């Protein structure tokens, strides 16, 4: 009986201390988390090989998977029968200064690949991709050659851990990190 009383009292005492020790926590505001995994901005710059004004295709989604849709901008039309040198840049603009993710992709080049797919009747071919350290396509730089005047879509896809080598998106597998579709016109 005595033992029981003692244990009960001890239990109450322990509980008391635990409860108070926990409710003393300060109510300091938590720190915001800046998404590190997010890619907010994809910019493809197409510079005419023979010189001239570059055309940029940009998809910018500052709230990531939030409710705002990405803002798609195409700076101008492509000229028919022209070769363009293309580069792609990925940014995380939720951080200041914006983080360049292309460098990270290039560092892990074996695990990434960019794909450029054409939809509608758009008459372009994308070729001369830069390669990864194993000699397979990476695709952060490339050439775009336009044919006759036409319109259609141009989709840029970044796959994580694709099967390399592959013949295109169809058999590349992996996981989609970026998928941006642009309406493009060749004049």
């Amino acid at each position: 009986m005595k033992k029981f009383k003692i244990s009960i009292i001890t239990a109450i005492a322990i509980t008391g201390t635990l409860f108070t020790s926990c409710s003393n926590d300060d109510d300091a505001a938590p720190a915001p988390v800046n998404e590190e995994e997010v890619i907010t901005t994809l910019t493809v710059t197409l510079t005419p090989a023979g010189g001239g004004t570059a055309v940029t295709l940009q998809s910018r989604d500052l709230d990531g998977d939030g409710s705002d849709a990405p803002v798609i901008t195409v700076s101008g039309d492509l000229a028919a029968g022209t070769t363009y040198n293309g580069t792609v840049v990925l940014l995380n603009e939720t951080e200041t200064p914006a983080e360049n993710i292309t460098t990270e992709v290039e560092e892990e080049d074996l695990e990434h690949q960019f794909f450029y797919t054409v939809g509608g009747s758009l008459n372009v071919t994308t070729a001369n991709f830069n390669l990864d350290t194993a000699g397979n396509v990476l695709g952060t730089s490339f050439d775009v050659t336009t044919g006759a005047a036409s319109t259609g879509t141009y989709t840029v896809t970044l796959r994580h851990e694709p099967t390399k080598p592959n013949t295109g998106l169809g058999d590349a597998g992996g996981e989609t990190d970026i998928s941006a579709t642009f309406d493009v016109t060749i004049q």
Partner: protein
Amino acid sequence: MRTYLYMLMLCSAMVMQSQNCNYTLSGKIIDLHDDSVLPGATLIIAGLEKVVESDINGIYTFSNLCEGTYTIQISHPNCDTQAFKVKVSSDTKRNFKLEHHLEELNAITLRASIFGNKTKTNFEQKVTEQQLDRFSNGSLGDVLNTLSGVSSLNTGNTLVKPMINGLHSSRVVIMNNGVRMEDQEWGAEHAPSIDVNSIGNITLIKGAGALKYSGDAVGGIIVAEAAKVPVKDTIYGKTHVAAASNGRGGVITSTLTKSYVNGWYGSIQGSLKRFGDYEAPDYVLSNTGIFGRSIAARIGINRFDYGVEAYYSFFKNEIGILRASHIGGASDQVRSINSGIPLIIRDFTYDIDAPKQDVTHHLFKVRGFKNFKNLGKVTLQYDFQKNERLEFDVRRSSDDNDRASLDLALNSQTIRLDLDTNNSDLFNLKTGILAQYQKNVADPSTGVRRLIPDYERFNFGIYGVADFSITDNFLVEVGGRFDYFNIDAQKFYRSSFWEDRNYDVLFPELVVEVFGNQILTNPKLDYSNVSATVGTRYTFNDDYKLFANYSLASRAPNPSELFSEGLHHSASRIELGDLRFDSEIAHKVSVTLQKQGNTFGFSVNPYINFINDFMLIEPTEIRQTIRGNFQVWEYRQTNATLVGVDVDASLTFNDNWNFYHQFSMVKGYDETRDLPLIDMPPVSTMNGLVYQNKELKNLRVELRSEYTFRQNEFPDNNFEAFIPETSTLELVDVSTPPDAYHLLHLHTNADFSLSKNSTLNIGLSVSNIFDTNYRNYLNRLRYYADDLGRNFTINLKITY
């Protein structure tokens, strides 16, 4: 002189005979510790040498007794023999409480007991230690899956969440040794943090009837308890080793218990579980390994009128999630679903990589009770739980894969005081109060926005449940409970969502600070919930019982229903909660007819559950993001109705052969939209044939058939996604349930005596004998891969 004496004796005998000697003395033999009934106790009236035995319900009857005071000696195989004095002056009812020392050592219970004592008017199902032993390499969900009316919501085959009558997660309360598990059970892919090997027995209560434990168990309550320790000088233990071909791994678990006749006892248990990638019939399920560790210890004193126990358990599970299920948007979803096999199949490995979960749960409890003569049993309990959940996603940079994407730590402390009047069967009252403080901390160093915010939650509860025996056969139970919840959260919203939802107009006062495109808010939410139960139990004759119960349950919204706002990788969808939710309120009516008997027994349990403001999640739109298209799933409140029936039956042909049958059906509807509810278990039936022979090394052979029908009622949540490589819109079929399937399992085991006190039990099993390819509607990974193929298991259990 001698003649006179004889005369006197003769006369008195005549006097006695002239008295009314038609009285009966009857009642029940009850276990003092948990009020369960004790069949097979022998009662002897000293002097008269009348002997009776208590039946399967613990009931005994002496008839033709004369008026007088009798001494009754009661003995039971697992109890110390005790004597009681009883005065009989009319037909008398008297219950006797024995201190029951459950014979854990080499105990062989061949039949599952269907009696419960957690509630008086709810039909309860029990799982015994022997049944649990067959699942030592499984999970709690796997064990419960064998009961009628219970299914599970799976993520792969290692994350198994019990589902009771179609409801799961926050709607199912799990009590672990008297402590309500606070292990972030809101998540559909958060499995219970309990090691099956630490459990002595499980009681399942369908519905919210057990108000002592909670008022918000809209689905039901699972009560897991440690094995009882006998009050005698002994030391015993068991070691269990199981190895399985599928997953190429196994489990080792060991328990050691020491007890003394003065009531002191101590027990320690530990388990280690390791499996590599599991396999479907045709391929390896890459990255589905598991590494589990657990340890539990308790020490205490258990006396007739008081007791104290301290308990601590540690549980850690590292679980790989099918690599092919981590996908990036609708176009990946189309590829995965159309492919028919997982897009990533690698060679077998024991390595567990991202995506994976690493969950740690600490539970500490100290409890003391005292039996007061005029009051009853008073129990005071304090518990502390710490649940740490790390979830690892596949990151862009593989160097970062060791960094969790979700890092939540939930600390809970509860103190409760309970009174059980422990009265005679005529009127019994259980009442108590409790207070709980909870704090959740989301570590920001993950570099991923918090899925669940930092919050503090306070809960105060008070309950009372009374039962009255109106006649011997008719019992009424009435109970009520009140809970108050207060949540104080610090949540970062994206400004775009905050404005989209109109929260900037509705809750401008919640804003604390603006950080770029994120807003820190401080929602403070209150919920006052009332729950109640009314039920009756009627015994027709010794074989038939009818249970009828109405329960009212109120459940406050959980953190994910309130605060979700972002991409859920494992489901490849964006999930959105709602701050404005009220508690959901369920009215459940359940009736059970039960027949017990030596050859044929059954129970039929139809029920209907009307749930107002039922919280469900459903797709609302397709969202364009730079990562591609994602389906947006939003939580919404509606009125839902669930109706179903569970049937169990068993037929014993003779001492050796026995057949059992189970059938479960549940239908769920969203009344507001007039649609079926998502993720309702399909109709299923289980049938088994058991052969057992006590003479032949306790040999037991069980052949079990499991048939799951196709779910024909489901909401159509399919959508169309733009596929860049083909420039087409394709249908993403996330709704169509998989086909029906039939599985056959075989389980055998036998006992071999090693010495006087030790036995070796050897078990051999094959599950999915025919290596059937199947997919389960309630497996969240069913889009990507088949379920498990054939598995051979060998079990060795030594008790000593």
